[in-house]
């Protein structure tokens, strides 16, 4: 049998694996990126915070079931083969995404809407749980041994590119529904958000076609022809002490930290810039896009480098840098957008105030909201919203006056500083994520590889990583005085992982993954 020690045809393998994986990530990310818009459609509007949290919970649900998807599809992959398993995950993911685009809103079908969305979201999570292990295993089992890190790192770019494509499609749709931008945005929030979901079916059909043409992994085909395929991959992966200890090491010494670094850099950063710094919707997304464009090649750089110096220290350095940089980076985000302070010395102009007066239910309560668009000398513009004290007809009831600064449009210089700071975070992501597929593949034997590597990967990424934006946001609601408190979650998880990885993980590259 022909051994996979040559790179001929490997690009075809990478292309087919990557396209499918990219689309799966695209499908998964559009939901997260549109969380606030979807909250208005599928959840009761009486309490916007509850609606947003519910959406995030639904979003989180997609992550939590990923380990179960890893078990189900990992087992299938080790029993029937890599090719058919991740063909199945692709169909499941594409179908669920398309269906989300068709679900009627809460106002039309009531509580059935969030329930259907939740079920579809769970299906997406299950499918994603089965996808990555298959793609990474498939590429690694085709790759020559001295370039395994390099070739598998192309798969690693797909998650980031999936986010990139999802942001691009969202922005494009948001701007193209009407020549007048505010009308276009209104249409997008109303029904246009469905388009990115529906479009995904075209992408899925293309990638199914490509994947149908793929051949089975040569190593798995060899095992199958020799009758050595695992009879019970779950038992062999987690029932045997020698393998279980490697599964635990992979989780606590690598994937747990990698997951939080990844989701902090690419997701929490966006959430923080939008919700805490109140940067304009378009700007907060385009800066992520730029940072991703500049940083994505580094997945391949670090993947290839890991073939020479080993996987461990590149991953650990990424975690170390993340641990010590997060608080200064996010502090910078806040300082660069602290318009309340800036306007004391830099105020250049202010538009005429727009006053809205809302009467309370008994027509004697009043709430006066004043909005003023202001521009600073440095080019930053923003909307200052003052809500006056609410005096109620009921004696003793007085609402608190508040001032908030929203829709901040950053000047060119600050904008690129933001891109640079996000870029730095994504560089950490490329360090921890670039070499990890090769690292995991080398850790486990062929016959139980799909199952064994999928579970720690998806607990690390799905549970620890995927919950990062949610837990970090939750921490800020529990400790309201410190806006950076959410960062302690990724910092602590990455720190524990760094210690375990440094002490217990080996830097040795296993040349033989054919066993």
């Amino acid at each position, binding site marked *: 049998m022909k051994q996979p020690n040559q790179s001929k045809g490997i690009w075809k393998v990478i292309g087919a694996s990557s396209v499918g994986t990219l689309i799966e990530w695209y499908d998964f990310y559009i939901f997260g990126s549109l969380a606030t818009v979807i909250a208005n459609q599928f959840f009761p509007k009486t309490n916007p915070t*509850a609606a947003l*949290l*519910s959406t995030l*919970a639904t979003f*989180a*649900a997609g992550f*939590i079931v990923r380990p179960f998807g890893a078990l189900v599809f990992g087992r299938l992959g080790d029993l029937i083969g890599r090719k058919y398993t991740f063909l199945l995950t692709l169909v499941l993911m594409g179908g669920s995404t398309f269906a989300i685009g068709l679900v009627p809103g809460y106002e039309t079908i009531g509580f059935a809407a969030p329930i259907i969305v939740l079920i579809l979201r769970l299906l997406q999570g299950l499918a994603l749980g089965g996808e990555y292990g298959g793609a990474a295993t498939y590429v690694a089992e085709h790759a020559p041994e001295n370039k395994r890190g390099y070739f598998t790192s192309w798969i690693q770019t797909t998650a980031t590119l999936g986010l990139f494509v999802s942001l691009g499609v969202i922005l494009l749709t948001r701007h193209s529904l009407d020549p007048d931008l505010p009308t276009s945005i209104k249409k997008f929030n109303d029904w246009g958000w469905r388009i990115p979901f529906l479009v995904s079916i075209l992408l899925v059909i293309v990638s199914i076609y490509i994947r149908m043409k793929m051949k089975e992994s040569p190593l798995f085909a060899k095992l199958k022809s020799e009758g050595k395929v695992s009879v019970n991959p779950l038992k062999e992966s987690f029932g*045997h*002490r*020698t*393998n*279980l*200890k*490697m599964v*635990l*090491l992979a*989780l*606590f010494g690598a994937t747990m930290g990698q997951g939080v670094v990844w989701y902090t850099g690419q997701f929490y950063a966006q959430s923080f810039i939008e919700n805490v710094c109140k940067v304009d919707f378009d700007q907060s997304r385009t800066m992520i896009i730029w940072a991703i464009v500049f940083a994505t090649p580094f997945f391949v750089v670090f993947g290839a480098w890991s073939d020479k110096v080993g996987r461990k220290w590149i991953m650990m350095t990424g975690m170390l840098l993340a641990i010590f940089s997060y608080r200064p980076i996010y502090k910078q985000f806040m300082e660069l957008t602290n318009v309340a302070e800036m306007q004391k010395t830099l105020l250049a102009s202010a538009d005429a105030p727009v006053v809205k007066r809302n009467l309370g239910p008994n027509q004697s309560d009043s709430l006066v909201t004043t909005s003023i668009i202001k521009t600073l000398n440095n080019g930053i513009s923003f909307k200052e919203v003052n809500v006056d004290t609410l005096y109620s007809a009921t004696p003793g009831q007085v609402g608190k006056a508040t001032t908030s600064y929203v829709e901040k449009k950053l000047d060119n210089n600050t904008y690129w500083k933001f891109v640079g700071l996000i870029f730095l975070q994504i560089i950490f992501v490329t360090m921890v994520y670039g070499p990890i597929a090769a690292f995991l593949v080398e850790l*486990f*034997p*062929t016959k139980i590889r799909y199952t064994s590597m999928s579970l720690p990967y998806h*607990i690390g990424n799905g*549970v620890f990583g995927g919950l990062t934006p949610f*837990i970090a946001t*939750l921490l800020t609601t*529990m400790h309201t005085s410190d806006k950076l408190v959410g960062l302690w979650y990724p910092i602590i998880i990455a720190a*524990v992982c760094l*210690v*375990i990885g440094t*002490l*217990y993980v*080996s830097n*040795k590259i*296993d040349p*033989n993954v054919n*066993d």
Partner: protein
Amino acid sequence: MNQLKKYLGIVWILLGPAAIYYLVKTAAAEVSKNPVIDTKIQWGVFVIIFIPIAIGMMIFGYYALQGEYDHLPESSSEIND
């Protein structure tokens, strides 16, 4: 180095129950502070998901204490044995 890995096993074992205690305590406090269904679901999910992981951490610590990580397998035959 192997001694350090073993002794740290105790830390990982203790980290498991410490994490469970902190998680359950925080969950109880948050639910009692705001006893609505959203809060209950959120914290219920965290407790259910993170307890098995904390137990996994204890098992990892136990293996470390036993010296299981003094030598990592260099081929799959060592894992299959």
